[in-house]
């Protein structure tokens, strides 16, 4: 959304990083980290999603109002998960 298009070099770098993270997440899924396997896989997915959103979707260069829309979406998603898991975690339905 900027007048000056970003150099394609950054796109190649981001894609390289995304593919490296893909290899990393497959590799670490075979290492037994106990309770940390799932959070690590999710953390790598969040990192990849951030790379796509910031660079490919140009959220890095977006105006504050557009960024606010994106953050608001995440906030509602958080409400959805927190309230549901708050319910499941406190009522003994997870046995």
């Amino acid at each position, binding site marked *: 959304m900027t007048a000056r298009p970003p150099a394609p070099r950054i796109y190649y770098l981001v894609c390289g990083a995304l593919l490296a993270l893909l290899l990393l997440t497959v590799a670490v899924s075979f290492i037994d980290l106990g309770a940390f396997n799932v959070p690590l896989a999710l953390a790598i997915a969040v990192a990849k999603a951030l790379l796509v959103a910031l660079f*490919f*979707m140009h959220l890095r260069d977006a105006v504050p109002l557009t960024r606010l829309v994106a953050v608001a979406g995440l906030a509602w998603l958080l409400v959805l998960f927190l309230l549901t898991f708050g319910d499941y975690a406190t009522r003994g339905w997870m046995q």
Partner: protein
Amino acid sequence: MEHVELASRTTAPHHQFDDLLQQRRAYEMGMWIFLVTELLLFGGLFLGYAVYRNLHTAAFQAGSRELNLLAGAINTAVLLVSSLTMALALHALQLARRRAAARLLALTALLGALFLAIKAWEYTSHVLHHKFPGALFQSSGPHPGPLELFYSFYFAMTGLHAAHMLVGLVVCAIMIGLLRRGRFTPESHAPLEMTGLYWHFVDIVWIFLFPLLYLMGYPQ
């Protein structure tokens, strides 16, 4: 006359906007609002998956191990590269390289079609192994019920994602047609930008589907 109209459509903002920049920012924000509704549409499925994976962890892990990890990983790489070619297509148009932009868009659509072909091959294999939920579902494992639930989530989530990919392919084809007819200029090409945002969003959904469905059965 028609030529003049076409020129004014691409260089002048619509009457409700002060200038082209404001118009582009409004388009961009509108698209992000749409994508946020999409995020919460997929979010409901992700939430259901998370809850039932917590309730039936062993069965869901067994389900993940039954999926073809190599096919899932290759498909992830295909989508990540397709996001690169989509970003490069937009970049090419911004440099007024219209033909390169059309070629890169075609490559993006081709990668999207490859993703769907691999997905269809996986689906065929599931159906042949009686893993489609319903009357024909069969499992010799210790938790046939929860495993069937895993496959219900698998088909619902990847199916909704595949439907979005199909829409993306159609929109890509339309954009290639518009590009070839000279409808976009380096200054004015909002539909192409919106297509890119949509494509990258669908990529992000898969970035989460892949570890949740394919990876979370390991290590045993």
